[in-house]
């Protein structure tokens, strides 16, 4: 029987397995659901799972294997920016489709990639806005703490520019970077405490990644940094990460996402139920990148059905404009810049490891590939429908990087 093959390119071992394994399961779950509905175009979907093992060059190798050897029609995968950068040339060369489900630093828009996670304007900036508001505590002093790699660097650059544009003085911004997997946070947490004792309301914007979060939060807890004193808003901490921490001391710390498991919406409730049944684990949590995977998957299915084929070029052309319901009650739309529209939610950590949604954008925010707050990218625009270009310079009226 002929099937449509779907590639899954998420690390199942190594440092990123902790986050990515769930996404692999999500794709398998979605495929299962879709097949129950009869598949796509009358064919069943078949998952091809590989393990790029948190090894960035291996991502490129495995991407090739999926596309060239296994002939998959689409790939769902990657988490870290570097893994995405690693596979980009492969997707361009072999002309395939990648759905990338994780919040990222932006500054990219490729024809072969669809970004269903948040761009900085769909996560970082609203989060800061919230903290500056009355409800968020009217924060005046900022700690931008991140792991030393490109996503935090870029995000913090954007935020720094944004904060300054809002009148925050340079001495009220502290930027701190730590290596991957940093586990001794004593000094940094005490520095944050010190920074926060200057008499102005202080908050931490955390782009700390992966494994480093747990020791960071444990240290916050044990040094008694309460959310009411210095709230921490994180962009990489979701339900999955919290499942590994005793959250009682973290009560009230924040996260900004486009989805929380605690969203009250029938579609979400239904999804959680089926997901827990699929994984045979009644306690299994859901999180934002999962939702992004779900949206991406549904958008692809819809586009394939609309195009009537899995042909890569046709599907790529069909995808912009496709609308699929997200799990927070809205309808997300695939934009011409290959990003999507999403709501932005701020949640406070509860003692059961879930988030209490304390703020939400009014409507859906369209993802912006190129930020308006950085010198180089301010003038860039992306539009794969009319301009057919991911980095169109509105000043020079030229499309960059198209020479070859």
């Amino acid at each position: 029987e002929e099937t449509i093959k779907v590639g899954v390119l998420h690390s199942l071992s190594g440092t990123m397995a902790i986050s990515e394994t769930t996404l692999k399961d999500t794709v398998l779950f979605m495929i299962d659901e879709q097949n129950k509905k009869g598949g796509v175009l009358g064919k069943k979907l078949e998952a091809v799972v590989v393990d790029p093992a948190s090894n960035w060059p291996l991502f490129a190798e495995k991407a090739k294997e999926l596309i060239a050897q296994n002939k998959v029609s689409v790939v769902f995968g990657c988490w870290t920016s570097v893994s995405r950068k690693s596979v980009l040339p492969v997707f361009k060369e072999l002309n395939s489709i990648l759905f990338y489900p994780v919040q990222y630093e932006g500054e990219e828009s490729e024809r072969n990639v669809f970004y269903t996670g948040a761009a900085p304007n769909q996560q970082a900036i609203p989060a800061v806005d919230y903290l500056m508001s009355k409800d968020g505590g009217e924060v005046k002093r900022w700690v931008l703490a991140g792991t030393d790699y490109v996503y935090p660097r870029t995000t913090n650059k954007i935020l720094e520019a944004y904060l300054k544009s809002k009148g925050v003085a340079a001495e009220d911004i502290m930027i701190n970077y730590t290596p991957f997997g940093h586990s001794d946070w004593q000094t940094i947490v005490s520095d944050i405490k010190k920074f926060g004792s200057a008499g102005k309301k202080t908050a931490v914007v955390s782009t700390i990644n992966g494994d480093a979060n747990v020791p960071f939060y444990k240290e916050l807890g044990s040094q008694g940094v309460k959310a009411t004193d210095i709230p921490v808003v994180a962009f990489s901490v979701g339900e999955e990460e919290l499942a590994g921490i005793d959250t009682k001391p973290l009560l009230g710390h924040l996260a900004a996402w486009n989805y929380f498991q605690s969203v009250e919406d029938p579609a979400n409730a239904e999804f959680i139920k089926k997901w827990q049944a699929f994984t045979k684990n009644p306690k299994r949590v859901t999180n934002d990148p999962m939702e992004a995977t779900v949206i991406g998957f549904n958008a692809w299915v819809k586009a394939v059905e609309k195009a009537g084929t899995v042909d890569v070029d046709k599907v790529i052309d069909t995808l912009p404009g496709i609308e699929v319901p997200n799990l927070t009650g809205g309808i997300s739309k695939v934009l011409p810049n290959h990003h999507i529209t999403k709501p932005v939610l701020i949640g406070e950590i509860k003692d059961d490891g879930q988030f209490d949604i304390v703020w939400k954008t009014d409507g859906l925010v369209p993802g912006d590939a190129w930020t308006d707050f950085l010198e180089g990218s301010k003038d860039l625009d992306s539009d794969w429908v009319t301009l057919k270009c991911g980095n169109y310079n509105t000043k020079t009226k030229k499309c960059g990087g198209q020479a070859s």
Partner: protein
Amino acid sequence: MILRHIDRAGWVFLGMVITAGLLIPALNLFVPADNFFHVPDYLVPLLGKYLCFALLAISIDLIWGYAGILSLGHGAFFALGGYAMGMYLMRQIGTRGVYADPILPDFMVFLNYKELPWFWYGFDMFWFAMIMVILVPAILAFVFGWFAFRSRVTGVYLSIITQAMVFALMLAFFRNDMGLGGNNGFTDFKDIVGFNIQAAETRAVLFFLSAMALAGGYILCRWIVTSKFGKVLVAIRDAESRTRFIGYRVENYKLVVFVLSAVIAGIAGALYTPQVGIINPSEFAPANSIEMVIWVAVGGRGTLVGAALGALVVNAGKTWFTGALPDLWLFALGGLFVFVTLFLPKGILGTLSTGWEKAQRRFRSDGSVPNGVPSAAE
């Protein structure tokens, strides 16, 4: 004659490498895609990567197998070679980057670099980059080795400081402030000496060059280890201080092989980058360097050919396992390592050749022992 010292295993190996170097590109380029013998496009750089790893393994075997220097930081030299090549490739992108800056690579644009850092000068020229591929690992190895060997740091102490070195480099390269692309490293290369890097022909050539580099590296290392110099190395490995008492300046010998090995590793890295399409600080990860040593152990330490074989087997195994058994492949790989140590104590090649000798003996003899104990001569 430099080839005189190559043994049978060596000839078989060279034959295979050279044949592969010619045959695989040919099968890729000239055999139609639907033919059974066609080698698909994606396979060429993949096999090319294995060859680079094999060369790297040989460079490690040279110092570990023969001079007893267990470097747990050889990934550093490999990666530096790779980075030097990567810098060249980045400069070749020119205005084809997303920000279309004619000079600055993309990552510099969005990190607000105003101009190219000084150490990037010259990398737009191929010859300069190639010199750097050799020079940068060589200088690091020289400085590091000069201090370490002069201070008579040996054994695990040496291993651990090589590991500290590679770890420090990893952290340094991770830093975005280094001006080398931070965690993302370099990727999305466009062309090399004017040829499209993704073209099948370019890849075929790169593959061929890798095969030649491997063959050349093997011949060179083999020549060294069979020379008197090589015997001195082994002497150093087994009884370092005794060697000194005979008058050999141990530190110089070690330094020479160490630098040479670093250069070979650097060349392997330089060939690796364009074929894999990305170079980033994870190449400096200490675990990677440990794994490289393990390739050598799997293949058979102190055999050169075995080292290359080990690199091929482990990496091919990895490719295969990660695709075929994505959830369980670590069991398979870990199991392979344990199996090799327990049942093939001399590594794959060591065991093969002992087996061969045994078979030969059985064939030749009928009980008479060729190497019987000669009594004290009268």
